[in-house]
């Protein structure tokens, strides 16, 4: 069994370094690779948020790679009938002390990108 430096990952600052994908459909399920500073796989959530809305990204502990990368799926946006792109924040949250990382931007795209639909609005 690996020995983790528990002190570091339970109190250290959370940080997202890089995402491979920064936009996806409002239906969610976009697979995203996130590179980060060390996290504990059983003590971390990825939160999508804008205004009062928050949703957790979907991943298993086995999707946390060596404490420094997480492969996850975007949650669906709360509103499926959006006509224009919506920017939201993505950040890491440690479950044990509710500490959040600085956010990075993710853009939800409308499901139906038919230009005539957009024009009709």
């Amino acid at each position: 069994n690996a020995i983790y430096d528990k002190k570091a990952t339970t109190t250290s600052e959370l940080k997202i370094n890089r995402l491979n994908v920064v936009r996806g459909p409002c239906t969610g399920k976009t697979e995203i690779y996130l590179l980060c500073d060390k996290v504990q796989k059983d003590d971390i959530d990825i939160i999508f948020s804008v205004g009062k809305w928050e949703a957790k990204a979907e991943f298993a502990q086995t999707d946390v790679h060596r404490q420094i990368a997480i492969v996850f799926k975007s949650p669906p946006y709360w509103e499926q009938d959006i006509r224009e792109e919506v920017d939201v924040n993505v950040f890491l949250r440690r479950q044990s002390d509710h500490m959040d990382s600085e956010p990075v931007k993710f853009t939800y795209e409308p499901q139906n990108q038919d230009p005539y639909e957009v024009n009709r609005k």
Partner: protein
Amino acid sequence: CPIYDSKSPNASNLKITRMDKTCGSVLGGDEIFLLCDKVQKDDIEIRFYEGEEEEDCWEAFGDFSPTDVHKQYAIVFKTPGYHSTEIDHSVTVFLQLRRKNGGDCSEPKQFTYVPHDRDKEEVLRKRQK
């Protein structure tokens, strides 16, 4: 059977765990996130190759700098172009991690080059706007 010191990145086995893409343009330049076992940022290369025989083997290397190696366990790189950009169907090659010093290699993963399609590229470019 060699005995590896599992704590030393020089002695442990190289392994590609996961990649966010396994296909890309024949022209190269596609960004790939690769998750791996421990590597040293100054002593690692990503080798694309085709063919088993030494003499007619094509090889090219993924493009990245040491700062693209994240905490020794992930690499963000750009694919090299295939040797011929004039392919009319997809071509599957291999890639592997290789130490610059010593030449140790990981098990290969497949990567598929897809033909350059100007029409499709136009559509993608418009969609990204």
